[in-house]
């Protein structure tokens, strides 16, 4: 195959292309699996049953986990794509804390799927909550956020049975555009909203 008058492509170039593909594959894998942790998750196991979000905890094991997205899919086991199976099944709470920064005033659409309940708090103001047990269901609320740094706190509880929590957001200049924009996992930054990296790691 000739390109212009000078370069003649043959099987040697196919080999070279194969080699570059290998290197591109290596590079892509390393880049795409590098994570920036933006959320601190404090998990507290209760020694006694929990049936609603604000039930007292009789504290057992407690641990802090640093994650890059609020993404614990629905299932029989508590699982995070980057952390694997976490050995919590029932009667525990998780406190998620993260900081986000916006450069201009804008609307944010928060969507939380959870089994069981949760409460989403921005700068100490409750935005969205479902405090009882439920199957994996959606809750949604749009708020207006001023430019600057904001603290986002989510409290989640699991009583018994199936479990999971996943949180998304989208940004827009108006309520409608925020609602219709592409949903992004909480913890992952976009052009209009940045989650600040945590200093610690696991």
């Amino acid at each position: 195959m000739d390109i212009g008058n000078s370069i003649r492509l043959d099987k040697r170039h196919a080999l070279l292309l194969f080699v570059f593909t290998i290197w591109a594959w290596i590079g892509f894998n390393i880049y795409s699996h590098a994570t920036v942790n933006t959320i601190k998750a404090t998990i507290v196991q209760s020694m006694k049953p929990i049936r609603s979000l604000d039930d007292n905890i009789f504290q057992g094991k407690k641990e802090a986990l640093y994650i890059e997205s609020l993404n614990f899919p629905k299932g029989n086991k508590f699982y995070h794509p980057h952390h694997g199976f976490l050995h919590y099944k029932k009667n525990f709470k998780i406190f998620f804390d993260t900081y986000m920064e916006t450069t201009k005033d804008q609307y944010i659409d928060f969507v939380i799927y959870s089994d069981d309940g949760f409460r989403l708090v921005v700068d100490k103001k409750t935005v969205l909550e479902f405090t009882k047990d439920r199957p994996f269901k959606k809750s949604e609320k749009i708020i207006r956020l001023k430019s600057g740094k904001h603290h986002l706190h989510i409290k989640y509880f699991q009583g018994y049975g199936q479990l999971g929590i996943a949180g998304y957001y989208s940004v827009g200049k108006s309520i409608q555009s925020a609602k219709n924009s592409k949903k992004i996992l909480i913890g992952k930054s976009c052009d209009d909203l940045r989650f600040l990296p945590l200093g610690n790691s696991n």
Partner: protein
Amino acid sequence: MTKKINYYLVLLVFMGFYTYFYNYQNPPKQIWDENYHIASAQKYIDHIAFMEPHPPLGKMLIALGEVILHPNKGIDKSNFDRTDYIKNFPKNLSFSGYRFFPTLFAWLNIVLFFFILNELVKSDILAFLGSFLYLFDNAIIVHSRTAMLEPIQLFFIFCSILWFVKKSETKREWEDYLILGIFSGLALMVKANSAILFLLFLIWAFKDLKIIELAKIVTKSIAYAFGVGIIFLGVFYLHFALGKKLPTHKKYAFSKEYISIIKKNGVANPLNFTTMLKDNLKYMKNYEKGVPKLNLCKPGENGSLFIGWPLGIKAINYRWEKHGPLVKYIYLQGNPVTWAIGAMASFLSIVLIVGVIVFNTPIKNTRIFEYILSFTFIYISYMTAVGMIPRVMYLYHYFIPLTISYILAILLLYYLFEEEIKKNDKIVLFSIVLIASAIVFTWWFYSPLSYYKPLTLEEFNQRIWLGYWQLHPIR
């Protein structure tokens, strides 16, 4: 040997020292099946009679390393003789003796692999860079730096393949068949799945049938069988002769006659050989029946289906150690680049063969094509055979076809670019060097999982390129 080959060999041996041999005694903790193998090896040292599911040669060599280096003087290892599975190893036990021969053989395998490739493609630079496929394969490295059987088995397999290749284009005499039989017998006496080497004999015999009369084939077959047989009998004789005392923890399949032979100190008497062999073979047969089947629904199942092996399914966490946020691992995880090359090579070899047979594609180089055909035949035969075994199998059971797929990769490369390689074409050589550097880079990237180096959770996650490998971090 030319001067150039010598340089390449020195370089390979030097690099192999670092990838395979250096610091092999660490961690001084049990890894994977060492509980079994060291328990058996110690029984040879202490002359305790026992029976084994595996043929005896590998365990004998593991024991020989301990005898030669004897790093555990003054440490009480008597409990190894009272069990087939060591639960607690004594504190300060050194593994340098038990791991010595497997690691040494794994190191020497680099030289054999280079000679195999050089014999096949007659290009020292291609053989040198092709040897990187073995030299920097993290999975083979991990498994070989332990008191395990596979590195010893691979050594004798490589000896067999080298001899097969060396004598393939000459007029073969019965002595050549005998030597092939001896090498195959040695491999077979380490692990039974070396029986695949029988195909090397079949390929020779098939080729010879075209040019010589049947009577000579019979003589050569007898020579081959004699070679295998003499090793089989010799190794088992040694196994019996070393077992002078009765074990206290287990009866194995010792018959009354065998027990009486031990009591009368007659284990080295060749007249008692058949009685002892019969009991041993009976034990081996019964043991295999008791090995669990693969259960993919079982939580923590380490076994895997043969069909997934070329893709690296599934990695096995041999051991780990947590220190705060850092975790050290010994993980059976292949080098993604070498494994991908191996998988592609075996697939493309099949495509090439089908092309020639079904679509009459012209053969560029008959000699190389015949080798591709032979090694693909061995690859497919092995995979078909293991596919019919119901017992649980693990990723390292793929090492034999994996190394064959590496040979196929070099054969294919030579088949496609023979003229360019001979002319030292810059683009082709540059591409080969880039592939070799990709192999070295990914070996380095995955090396913490091979050499027990600490990783954070994020660093571990960076290495989970494909979910189906089933690399799981410890939290």
